[in-house]
């Protein structure tokens, strides 16, 4: 029983949260429309959290993802405003993410700065750059091409239900593709298994022939790209870009990975668990909003629930001491 709780406690907790809102909001919560809505709202967070998982698997993390999302959003918007074609602007914005990620990787793996310090510094830099690029203003309206803004509103028609056309939002689709991709890479490729090995014991991995420095660098590049993609998705969704709009993603993404880790058997980061973590946080946000809970109270509640989950799993694991 104890071990059952230890292994599945978090999942049960997550399910309990869903059931709670189902009962509290009988008409609006458990509807396809609401869930599609949640999935769209969460799509950016999923992309950031899932690519964050790539570095967290190695025991590292990246504080600069939020700032990078903001930066890539304004970079794309500024290029739109200059009249560049949409694909070119997006490619440049993604390239900024890649370069920023590589910069993080170089600092962490080649120069040997702690990820906390390195990405804290680059976070500040990316954030400053976002203000510089945008001139501190929000870019919106005619500067944003219609086709770009339309993308977030489009989707894949799934059929009709109850007389309404059900559409899978395009952003949800992007998040799903990214999740699938990262899941395959981490769980089924040599690359992913080596990242897990680095997380297990970096020295041992190196002596066993793993190119630790290169892999760490590339993983940060991966995360940087993910952040940039999320920033673009965000800009499309709100059809505008300002230099702080992605900043909030970072803390929530890290929280989601940690929340997910409490649900895995070995207590280590894992893509599907991360998604479960994101969904839990998103569901709470959605449900509490619908219940018209004050947004400050909401923050306190969400923080408390994260702590609760992590504490329960830490207590459960205390038994499994290292020898």
């Amino acid at each position: 029983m104890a071990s059952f709780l230890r292994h599945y406690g978090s999942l049960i907790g997550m399910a309990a949260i869903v059931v709670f809102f189902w009962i509290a909001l009988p008409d609006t919560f458990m509807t396809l429309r609401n869930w599609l809505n949640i999935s769209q709202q969460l799509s950016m967070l999923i992309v950031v959290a899932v690519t964050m998982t790539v570095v967290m698997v190695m025991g590292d993390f990246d504080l600069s993802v939020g700032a990078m999302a903001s930066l890539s959003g304004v970079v794309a918007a500024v290029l739109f405003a200059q009249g560049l074609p949409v694909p070119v602007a997006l490619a440049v914005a993604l390239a900024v993410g890649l370069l920023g990620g590589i910069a993080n990787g170089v600092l962490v793996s080649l120069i040997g700065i702690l990820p906390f310090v390195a990405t804290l510094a680059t976070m500040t830099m990316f954030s400053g750059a976002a203000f510089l690029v945008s001139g501190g203003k929000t870019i919106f309206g005619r500067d944003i091409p219609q086709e770009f803004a339309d993308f977030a509103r489009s989707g894949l028609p799934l059929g009709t239900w109850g007389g309404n056309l059900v559409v899978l939002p395009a952003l949800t689709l992007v998040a799903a593709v990214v999740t699938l991709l990262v899941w395959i890479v981490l769980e089924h490729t040599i690359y992913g298994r080596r990242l897990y090995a680095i997380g297990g014991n970096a020295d041992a991995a190196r002596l066993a022939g793993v190119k630790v420095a290169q892999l760490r660098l590339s993983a940060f590049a991966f995360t940087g790209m993910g952040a940039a993609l999320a920033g673009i998705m965000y800009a499309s969704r709100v059809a505008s870009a300002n230099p702080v709009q992605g900043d909030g993603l970072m803390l929530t993404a890290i929280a989601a990975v940690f929340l997910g880790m409490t649900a895995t058997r070995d207590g280590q980061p894992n893509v599907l668990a991360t998604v479960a973590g994101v969904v839990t946080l998103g569901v709470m946000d959605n449900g509490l909003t619908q219940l018209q809970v004050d947004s400050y109270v909401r923050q306190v509640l969400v923080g408390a629930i994260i702590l609760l989950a992590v504490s329960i799993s830490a207590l459960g694991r205390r038994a499994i001491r290292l020898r």
Partner: protein
Amino acid sequence: MPELRLSGIVKTFGPARALDRAALSLRGGEVHALMGENGAGKSTLIRILAGLESADSGEVTLDGALLRLGSPDLAKTAGFQFLHQENHVVPALSVAENMHLSRPYPQRFGLVHWTKLRTAAVDALGQLGASHIDARSVMGSLGAGDQMLVRIAATLLDDGDAPWAYVMDEPTAALSGAEAERLFKAIAALKATGAAILYVSHRMDEVMRLADRITVLRDGAHVATRDRAATNRDKIIRDMTGRDMTDLFPRHTATSGPPALLVRDLRAGGLGPLSFAVAEGEILGVAGLSGSGREVLLRALIGAVTRAGDLQLRGVPLAANPAGAWAQGLAYVPPERRTEGVMPRRALAETIALPHLARLSRLGFVQRRKTAGLVRRLAQDVRLKASGPDQPIAELSGGNQQKVLFARALAGDPAILLLDEPTRGVDVGAKFDIYTLIRDLAARGTAVIVASSDLPELIGLSDRIAILNAGRISQILPADGLTEAALLTACYQKES
């Protein structure tokens, strides 16, 4: 004389039974050896005594009175002092501080009394005859042998309440002969004061020399406790394994293949210049006192430390980093399994598969079936005792963790097998299996280089033995007919 008795101790981990009515008695003034195969439950029993693990059932009495265990503090009050099997040190702290980790720092005016801390450490090191270790130096800068001496010295620290029982779990596994001698002297001194020493080791000769009584566990159960005079090596092995073991070392098969590895003017961290060659199918032993460069040589060959020189593998220049070296067919068993070898929380199968992932995958995708097959086969070859391929390595017994590292080096017949203390902590029977596997591999053309502080192992296993002295090879001797004494003398001799 105090007497400690443990009886009917049962300890299960999930479905696995680590201890199954184990029993032991320990009297003041004796050295009591605790023996058993890897995974027999020795360390678990000790951890229960130390209060790090709690028994499911069983009874512990001290002089007839029931003893309450369950926390390290209780164990300390009961007068026990422990040296656990796995190396827990804080590399960034000084030697003196590491020695005080599990006890109160000496204080003055509510602040740490640094001079007293240091003199206490210096005294304990001196008592062990290890005064060459500077108590102020940083723990991480010491070699494995010296770190072990520090940990042993820490048990000898005098902090007022002298313990009556010292429990040492494989203290000599990382020590050279000379270092072990110092430990034996310290043990004799403790014994003379009336203290009891519970001693775990897989080295039969030292057990026969030190122990007054010997208790053997098999699969967690008590098999026998005998006086040393009433038993012998073969009897103990039979108690441990249930089978007879005659010759420990497999026959040498004469070999003179083409050179597999050619080393010219190798230099690395105080080592060299060195030049030597190893032939295909040959087993080259590497002997040397601590500080002779033995610790660096294999690291340099696998490319884990920066090196200079001309190294050729079958005529091709050898990569100077571990990734390249493994890819060219080198395989390496590092000396420190805990810090350099295993991924403690991850499944043991992952540690085994890690260097072979490229071969186990297609288009970058790892093939699960193939990986599982390899792991299963290797685990069988080394007789790994584990609940399954997904068991986290930290849950295996020390010797079984070592077998995991050895198994991984065997996969796919490496061109060169580099072994640094390959049987550290491995039981007698399993050692025999490992020697046989090494021989078989050599017979199929693998060149083997084995560095070891275990002289009988070097002599029995090697074809030739290279003696390192002050970073240079002073001589290379044929192992056939070499005696331990002669080898040791050679280790002390400068270049002739």
